[in-house]
């Protein structure tokens, strides 16, 4: 029984990783005041580019790099649209999602014969000696691959940077009160650009994890709303790195349930289990209504548009 539970936890973590990468990325962007609905598109882009790069170079690390860069490029585009052109941030995000979905579907058909790939090379797990043998948390935290370790490090690092350094303070200030930051001489645009590009890079890495580790191929639309669940996790986690990551773990665990429930011999049609992460995400948002306050300047262009 402990084996089952341990397996379940590991599975939950694995499923939560793309969510958490996206959510962490979204956190940077939204803390700076830029709404990022394009996380879904960034995830998909990362998944696609990492699959293509790995397919052609037979080297997963090129895949990871490709995802990082391509995600960052999408972020750059989102930043350009929302910060420089001051397009409505929701519209920009949605448009990027549509472009990403369309382009990746189209290009996938060109690159891979039927739109899906053959088995890609995966990333091997690195087992940390000694700690890996701890019960329950051993397999959970110390037998994962590099991306997971990177994620966990980034979560801890982000918490520190965000709340204990002046860089983090600047970021948060831009999201709460851009005018104040502007008058102090720091460029609001530059901070937001950086934040949004970072969010793209991180979400791209999440996509790389999706296609290189989780399933080892690329399928059209494989992000399946994970970018939106990540946003729900962000809201549920009140834009705090650790809380948001835990929320992602919660959502990941509902997805893991789908895989385990058949093993338990319970006969529920799979669709109800596939629905579960999305239902839980909505319930989480409802439960938090009104009590989760976003950064004050979230979604508002700076300088404000004339009416």
């Amino acid at each position, binding site marked *: 029984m402990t084996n089952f539970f341990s397996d379940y936890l590991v599975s939950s973590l694995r499923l939560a990783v793309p969510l958490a990468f996206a959510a962490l990325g979204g956190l940077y962007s939204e803390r700076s005041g830029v709404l990022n*609905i394009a996380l879904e598109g960034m995830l998909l882009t990362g998944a696609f580019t990492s699959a293509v790069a790995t397919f052609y170079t037979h080297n997963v690390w090129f895949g990871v790099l490709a995802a990082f860069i391509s995600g960052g490029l999408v972020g750059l585009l989102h930043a350009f*649209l929302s910060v420089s*052109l*001051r*397009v*409505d941030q*929701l*519209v*920009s995000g*949605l*448009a*990027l*999602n*549509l*472009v*990403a*979905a*369309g*382009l990746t*579907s*189209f290009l*996938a*058909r*060109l690159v891979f014969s039927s739109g899906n790939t053959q088995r890609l090379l995966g990333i091997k797990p690195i087992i940390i000696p000694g700690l890996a043998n701890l019960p329950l948390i051993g397999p959970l935290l110390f037998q994962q691959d590099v991306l997971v370790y990177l994620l966990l490090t980034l979560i801890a690092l982000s918490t520190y940077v965000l709340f204990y350094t002046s860089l983090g303070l600047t970021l948060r200030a831009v999201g709460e009160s851009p005018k104040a930051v502007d008058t102090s001489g720091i460029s609001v645009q530059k901070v937001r650009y950086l934040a949004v590009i970072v969010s793209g890079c991180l979400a791209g890495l999440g996509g790389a994890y999706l296609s290189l580790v989780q399933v080892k191929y690329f399928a*059209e639309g494989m992000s*399946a*709303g994970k970018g*939106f*669940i990540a*946003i*729900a996790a962000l*809201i549920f986690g009140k834009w705090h790195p650790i809380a948001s990551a835990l929320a992602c773990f919660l959502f990941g665990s509902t997805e893991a349930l789908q895989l385990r429930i058949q093993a338990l011999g319970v006969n529920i*049609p799979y*669709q*109800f289990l*596939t*629905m579960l992460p*999305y*239902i839980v*995400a*909505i319930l989480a*948002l*409802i439960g938090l*209504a*009104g009590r989760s306050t976003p950064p004050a300047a979230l*979604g508002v262009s700076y300088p404000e548009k004339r009416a």
Partner: protein
Amino acid sequence: MNMIRVHPVVLPILPPLIAIGSALLVGAGLILLAGASPITAYTALFQESLSTYFGFGNTLTKMTPLLLTSLGVLVALRAGQFNIGGEGQIYLGALGSAVVGLYVQGIPALIHIPLALFAGFSFGALWGLIPGYLKAIRGVNEVITTLLLNYIAINLVSYLVQHPLQEPGAPSPYSPLIAKTAQLPIILPGSLAHAGILVALVVAGLLWVLLVRSPLGYQISAVGFNPIASRYSGISVERTIMLVMSLAGGLAGLAGATEVMGLKYRLFEVVSSGYGFDAIAIAFLSRGSVLGVVLTSLFFAALRSGANVMQRSAGVPITVIYAIQGLTMLFIAISLTVGRHSHLKT
């Protein structure tokens, strides 16, 4: 902008036209990448979809769900709400009309058709009311809720079609045929074009009257433009939000209903191939005008309907259409910053 002398009537449609043109240009690049000639591809696409009898019929059938769903997005947008749940609402509407089409027997078409359409509308409206309520009363962002509800709706229909509603002995999951009295008649004999397009056009006309010429329409625009001032003048912002979201959902539901009643005559696992998301691009492209929605949905429908022929005769994958549509949305987003007037304030 004043350096170029442009006739004032032409000016508002210029940005959308440039956006579409740019998207088609990039699309041409993609087609070249696929190893085909853009001229052949685009000719095949537009010729088939607009100038052949059968092709135009196809265009009309695709225009029906696009137009209805886009009208829904437009209505919500007028009140400052983003309805991204069109896809799921289409599924729910298809479900509702299929249920009435399957389980209600023995009544004349004159009653059965409106009943089934109403059921589709209601199911979709419910799916729009949920996020509407959550936004209005509980302050939950409707973009996320509508998005998440899509996935729930699709899975729900998938389950129902695979289990309780499945046609016994069917090789793949689909429901039995709906009653003949619930089926929409074909309006262009020899093609697939059905009466759904007439329903859609009538609805478009009614909606125009509602939005532009009625007190309710004014109320909706007021809430979209300035919710605080609206509240001061006595308008219930909450009720307006719930109303537009339900209406938007209902319109998308109607789209799903027409698909089942006019095209498929059954409920399948896949009801919509992204109409809900195209609708968003269409609504934005039309910059708040109902006529714009009608024309733009015609354009998008032509893209989709000609895509198959384009794939066959020019060898270009259909997916380039999705890329072009996404690019159109992107260029529209950019062009929106150029316009001075905007009906689309959030």
